[in-house]
């Protein structure tokens, strides 16, 4: 039975994993050991020179690493007062035994850690949740190639974003650079080459959700189109400060991804101001090599030394810098002065370290009338995080002396600042139509001939293959891939409530007349239950509703239950899409016009639908309504029974309307 206590501070250290041994009186302890040595002091184990204070019994299962005693008697006397099983090491030869015990303790600790890792890896992947979804607006002018897009929310928890390309890149040399910035720090950075820029949604995942913090998340976007490439992003509205069409997802801590195109080297870096120059470290100059000319670095006064390169007539000189970490830099910058001679030219090249074939080159550039020359060369993607720079000089006309004032990496200029996606937009211009996410580029849509329209059905947007360590993607890959064209929740469509329906994998002709209606995505706007429990609704936003008779890029509706009467409500107000060709009925309240179809007397409401297209809309909605209801109820985190109840309400309404159309009551 343990009768010795342990000091509170010593116990805390022991609980924190500090290796501790107990030493009997008279025991000589070798110096230099990274061990805490406890001594019995008036019945309490304390560290040497510890201040007497609170003492506690040993918690169950906890014991010192060993008891060190000079002889068996002393060991037995003290060992009886320690937790059972405390190993006893005797005499001057304690060290080998102690080392062995430490090794065993380390092995146990590693085994526990590995087991924990296995358990964590076995956990179901935390699903990301879409928190912003702004589809592209057809007819809206493409955003400028360089822009700043505030997200109107902190970056904390963001696990991925997606941008929409109205026009895909046709030239692999085109490049999209995106940074997610919060509080001046890079939370995510991606460099996507033209080959990975097809039209449609482009998912940009973070390796892990952005860390906590209140700073607003801002996207910095730069789209560098190669000559002749019309690649363009999509806007989410049609006004001058329209936000990008974009999606934002967040995920709980522990979510992991191995995102393609991620600039790992830029992550978590403090972001310099737009336009800032990042001078080369002195070491980079020291390792520079020059061939074909004579070079010297000269400083006048306290300034930084500048490189001077002297060329003989007709010579070409090359200045090569060793690989440089490029971090968040976007540009290679060179500023040169022709100090003597005339007719000299300069060219700058940049390439990812060890991959010269991927180099970007400026053309040969001449000096201006003042003898100055400035080159800003967009950097190529550098997945390795390092870049090589080469400056070439030639002089055909005669001897020349060129001064390199600056050879540096730099930040691009800040782009146009856009409105956050949540801010109210000005009314769109006539003709602008909200597009469903994941659909083809606006150029492929012809409202005048919807029946012959070839559209990529939801989920069919070409996507870049995902790659990365299996440990990161295990259990999450399928859901993350879905982010490219559809939400992370299980996709449901068709008339069979709750049944997942596989989406077409390739662009397809508009649906066959007999094909069931389907939708791409549904988001929960609101779940409301009044205090008395007599009224409840699910406010749902549907994107990509497809039926044989039409395609509705956005639909919003409320499925409600008012004292057992189930109905659908549609509104004409800000935040609601234009769904009807002709607004049905004339009812309105304080929030504006609304139209309802209810399980009681649906025929009267249906009679207010003025066009076949509008009637087709309601039929399509009713067809998918059980699936919508279940998805909405799931999103509202309702219990399974309540989810089922909403599905039943949806089925009931659909049945009532169907019966009404057939001229009979259910």
């Amino acid at each position, binding site marked *: 039975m343990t009768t010795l206590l342990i000091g509170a501070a010593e116990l805390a250290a022991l609980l924190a994993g500090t290796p501790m041994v107990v030493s009997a009186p008279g025991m000589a302890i070798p110096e230099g050991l990274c061990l805490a040595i406890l001594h019995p002091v008036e019945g309490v184990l304390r560290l040497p020179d510890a201040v007497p204070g609170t003492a506690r019994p040993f918690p169950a299962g906890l014991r010192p690493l060993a008891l060190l005693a000079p002889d068996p008697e002393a060991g037995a006397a003290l060992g009886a007062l320690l937790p059972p099983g405390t190993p006893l090491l005797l005499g001057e030869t304690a060290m080998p035994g102690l080392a062995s015990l430490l090794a065993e303790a380390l092995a146990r600790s590693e085994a526990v850690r590995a087991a924990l890792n296995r358990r964590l890896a076995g956990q179901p992947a935390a699903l990301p949740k879409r928190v912003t979804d702004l589809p592209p607006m057809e007819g809206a002018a493409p955003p400028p190639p360089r822009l700043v897009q505030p997200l109107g929310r902190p970056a904390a928890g963001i696990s991925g974003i997606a941008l929409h390309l109205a026009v895909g890149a046709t030239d692999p040399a085109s490049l999209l650079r995106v940074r997610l910035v919060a509080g001046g720090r890079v939370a995510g950075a991606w460099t996507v080459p033209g080959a990975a820029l097809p039209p449609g949604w482009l998912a940009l995942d973070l390796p892990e959700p952005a860390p906590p913090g209140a700073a607003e998340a801002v996207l910095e976007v730069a789209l560098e189109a190669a000559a002749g490439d019309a690649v363009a992003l999509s806007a989410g509205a049609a006004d001058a400060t329209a936000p990008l069409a974009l999606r934002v997802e967040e995920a709980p801590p522990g979510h992991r991804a191995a995102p393609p195109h991620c600039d790992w080297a830029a992550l978590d870096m403090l972001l310099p101001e737009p336009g800032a120059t990042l001078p080369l470290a002195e070491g980079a100059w020291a390792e520079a090599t020059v061939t074909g000319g004579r070079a*010297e670095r*000269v400083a006048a*006064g306290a300034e930084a*030394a500048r490189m001077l390169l002297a060329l003989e007539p007709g010579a070409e000189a090359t200045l090569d810098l060793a690989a440089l970490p490029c971090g968040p830099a976007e540009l290679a910058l060179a500023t040169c*002065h022709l100090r003597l001679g005339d007719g000299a030219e300069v060219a700058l090249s940049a390439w990812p370290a060890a991959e010269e074939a991927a180099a970007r080159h400026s053309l040969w550039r001449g000096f201006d009338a003042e003898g100055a020359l400035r080159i800003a060369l967009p950097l190529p993607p550098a997945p390795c995080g390092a870049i090589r720079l080469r400056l070439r000089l030639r002089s055909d006309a005669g001897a020349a002396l060129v001064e390199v004032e600056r050879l540096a990496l730099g930040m691009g200029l800040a782009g146009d600042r856009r409105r956050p996606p949540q801010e109210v937009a000005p009314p769109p211009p006539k003709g602008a139509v909200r597009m469903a996410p994941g659909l083809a580029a606006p150029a492929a849509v012809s409202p005048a001939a919807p029946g012959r329209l070839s559209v990529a059905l939801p989920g069919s947007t070409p996507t870049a293959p995902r790659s990365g360590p299996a440990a990161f993607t295990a259990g999450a890959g399928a859901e993350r891939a879905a982010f490219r064209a559809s939400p992370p929740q299980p996709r449901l469509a068709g008339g069979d409530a709750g049944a997942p329906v596989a989406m077409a994998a390739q662009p397809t002709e508009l649906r066959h007349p007999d094909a069931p209606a389907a939708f791409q995505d549904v988001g929960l706007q609101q779940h409301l239950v009044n205090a008395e429990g007599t009224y409840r609704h699910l406010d749902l936003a549907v994107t990509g509703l497809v039926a044989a008779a039409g395609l509705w890029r956005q639909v919003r509706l409320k499925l409600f239950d008012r004292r057992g009467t189930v109905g659908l409500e549609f509104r004409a107000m800000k935040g609601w899409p234009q769904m009807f060709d002709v607004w049905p009925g004339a009812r309105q309240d304080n929030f504006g016009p609304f139209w309802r179809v209810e399980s009681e007397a649906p025929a009267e409401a249906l009679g207010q639908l003025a066009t076949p297209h509008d009637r087709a809309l309601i039929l399509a909605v009713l067809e998918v309504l059980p699936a919508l209801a279940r998805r909405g109820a799931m999103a509202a985190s309702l219990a399974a029974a309540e989810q089922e109840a909403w599905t039943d309400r949806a089925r009931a309404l659909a049945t009532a309307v169907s019966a009404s159309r057939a001229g009979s009551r259910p």
Partner: protein
Amino acid sequence: MIASRRLGRLLVALPSIRFGGTERHAAELAARLGTTGLSVTLAAEPAMLPLLEEALPAGFPAPRLLAAGIGWAEGDGAAEARQRAAASALLAAAAPDVALLPLPWPDAGLGLMRALAEARLPRLALLHLAAEGPAPDAIAASLPGIAVDGMAWSAVSAPVARRAAGFFGLPPSRIAVIDNPAPPPAAQDPAPVRAALRRSLGLRGDAPLVAFIGRLEEAKGADLLPAIADRLGVTLVCIGDGPLRGYLDAQALADPRGMLRILGPIAEPLPWYLAADVLLLPSRLEGAPLVFLEAASMGCPVVATAAAMEGLAPGLARIAAPEPAALAGAVQALLADAAGTAAMIGRARAEAARRSWERAMEAWRGQLRVAAMLAESAA
């Protein structure tokens, strides 16, 4: 590994014996070069030092002023030897890493050039003026000793650079042209200044006024001023001093209409650019005339000879032949052409605005670096 060096001490050796635009420029340049951590010594004849000190711009580190017998005058055959003799003490006192030689005339610093070449010191010559014609005999005689290839060269205008290159046997591109800076534009309302200065001359507020500002010598065309005033029939003020001062004073006294007014040297002539309707620049030889740049900054139109403006772009002044009738006629034409004059003022202002000290200093520091590299390669 690429060699690296730092220039810490600069010697500006000015071989002038009288004070003018070259010397004012040298004082300002010496002070401004000190802003980037260069320790600057400005050496000149003892009599020049007070004038140089007065010309130092405010707000810049004052260079160390050092008296040295390095003055040069045209026709002074002993100047070169005197400069060489003074140079050793100068180099010992200043211990420079690099030297700058502002030269009022191409052969004004041959003794200094030779001494600096013998010391293998990086050196930069700054040529302010060079006349058309054959190389001065002194230059031809000194050429082997001054090691022109190991020197950096600069000039205030392309014509000066071209002529000097010929004198020293250099390719034209070997001499860098660095534009003289212009003062910042006037911030004050010219109307009260115009009225006050006319009152000081006893003129009506709307009386036309022509100004000459510069050294009173034949090279500046000062000898033409009495005849120009006589033909113009408007008041012509002359600001400056020089060998023709007595002659001009006498002519002014003899002028029964009082059209020619000799005001002598004025420490701060800028208000006269604001007050005058025209600046007259009848020079027979100029490098890059500072008075033109001052007039351009102040919005004062200029009538000049082609020689005066040869280092500047065309269209910045009304050009006339260097004779009284042509110059007087050009002044009258300018006064009669309000629209054309306004356009010309605008072009001149733009040129002045382009010529800032900030731009020039970048070029000057660049040439000091070039000097370091050329001296090294020559060695």
